[in-house]
């Protein structure tokens, strides 16, 4: 899932100014992150009205990153949209750009910061798991990703700062190399880790467009 968090309300307010605004949320990731679901869209609407900003309408797209579906859903809101020059989007960076594509004449305001691709560990607790590198090497590490989870993306073992299973940059972060080592040790295959991993092919991560 794409993990987002809502921007500071005062910053959103500054961007909007005093003009009427149309609000867009997303039914998928932003809903689960509580940054742009129906509840959050309505809460923002209320706060904006309290601050005397007219809200011409709102919608929660299903999901915001679906270009064709957005077109279809937004048809019903043409009147409300025509009353606003600005659209506040509470979705991920992808959803925000899809809206921008649909309304090039309007000012699109990003209501969230997009953080990472991760897991929902518990309600409101998210865990970064994937860097979208374009060439998955999870099989080499029994399902642990050192590219994402090691802050230095080290592919050949832990750095000198691994201490009691924790990372030197933040003791709340597990050292992924400690995880890998413990699992490989348990499975009796530590010799696999003596193999030197070659530098990654980052050109695989640079595809900007793909059609199947």
């Amino acid at each position, binding site marked *: 899932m794409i993990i987002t968090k809502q921007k500071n309300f005062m910053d959103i307010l500054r961007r909007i100014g005093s003009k009427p605004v149309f609000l867009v949320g997303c039914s998928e990731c932003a809903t689960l992150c509580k940054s742009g679901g129906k509840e959050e869209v309505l809460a923002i609407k209320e706060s904006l009205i309290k601050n005397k900003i007219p809200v011409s309408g709102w919608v929660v797209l299903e999901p915001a990153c679906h270009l064709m579906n957005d077109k279809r859903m937004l048809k019903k809101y043409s009147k409300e949209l025509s009353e606003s020059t600005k659209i506040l989007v509470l979705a991920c960076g992808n959803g925000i750009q899809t809206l921008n594509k649909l309304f090039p004449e309007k000012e699109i305001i990003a209501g969230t910061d997009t953080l990472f691709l991760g897991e929902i560990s518990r309600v409101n607790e998210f865990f970064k798991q994937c860097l979208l590198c374009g060439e998955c090497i999870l099989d080499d590490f029994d399902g642990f990703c050192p590219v994402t989870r090691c802050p*230095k993306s080290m592919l050949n*073992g832990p750095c*000198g*700062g691994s201490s009691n299973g924790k990372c030197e940059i933040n003791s709340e972060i597990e050292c992924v190399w400690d995880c890998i*080592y413990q699992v490989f040790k348990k499975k009796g295959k530590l010799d696999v880790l003596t193999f*030197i991993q070659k530098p990654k092919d980052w050109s695989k991560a640079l595809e900007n467009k793909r059609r199947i």
Partner: protein
Amino acid sequence: MNYRSNLEKVLTEGHFVVTAEIGPPKGTDANKIREKAKLMKDSADAFNITDNQTAVVRLSSLAGSVILLHMDMEPIMQITCRDRNRIGLQSDVLGAAALGVRNMLCLTGDHQKFGNHPAAKGVFDVDSIQLLQIIKNMRDEGIFQSGDRLLSGKPYVFLGAAANPYADPFEFQVDRLRKKIDAGAEFIQTQSVYKIDKFSEWMDDVRAQGLDTKVHILAGITPLKSVKMTERMKFHVPGTDVPNSVYLRMKKASDPAKEGYAIAVETIHQLKKIKGIHGIHITALFWEEIIPLLVKDAGLHV
């Protein structure tokens, strides 16, 4: 035999070597390096020039190395993977070799979080082991990382790497050392030693795998100058292990600098007795002037 550097020569001839670290200034004043270098000139066989250590911006290790070369001193250019991708790294290797740098120490590098630009984007395109392999292939095979060929001159360099016997998982550190040797490391400089028994234990494992015969290991020494510094090393510097016994000695001492110096001399004497240790690497943080005396008192031959 045709040695690539003096460091390679003295190590190969079986001498107990000394290397010492010089941190470049946070500014353009080359004299800062020259002054430190003059102090240490006759006390070590080669001199590490650090590469923006702890991620603090300083004069580059390549420029610092060339300043030493102009003084007829031998640099060990440190080169980290934090600030350059494989294109920048290989380019600097070529440039440094062209200017006469003959020793390179390959490091992954401290995370940018610890430095004076914590908002920087860390590169980490390759890690230290991959960097060793890349430079080795440039030197021995005449190929770049991509497989493209070098066309005019190969970097004729002696390659080093770091090792930390105090990092976790402890058992994996020896495997990692072996990977560094497989990748191309010919000498190793270790993390500063304060806890000698753990270091000995690590060396036992190193010898058990026969790695001491494949690489020259230089043990790290950083003399403690004050209680404050001891506390910083003990509680705040990642990857260092200052035991309570050393901490207590420093706290109880009426002259902590004298005590820290004595501890350093004792540690060097103990390290010299460990089979497989071929030298000492001294990092005297803000205390470079102590190096000539330390080398003399510890009976280190240069």
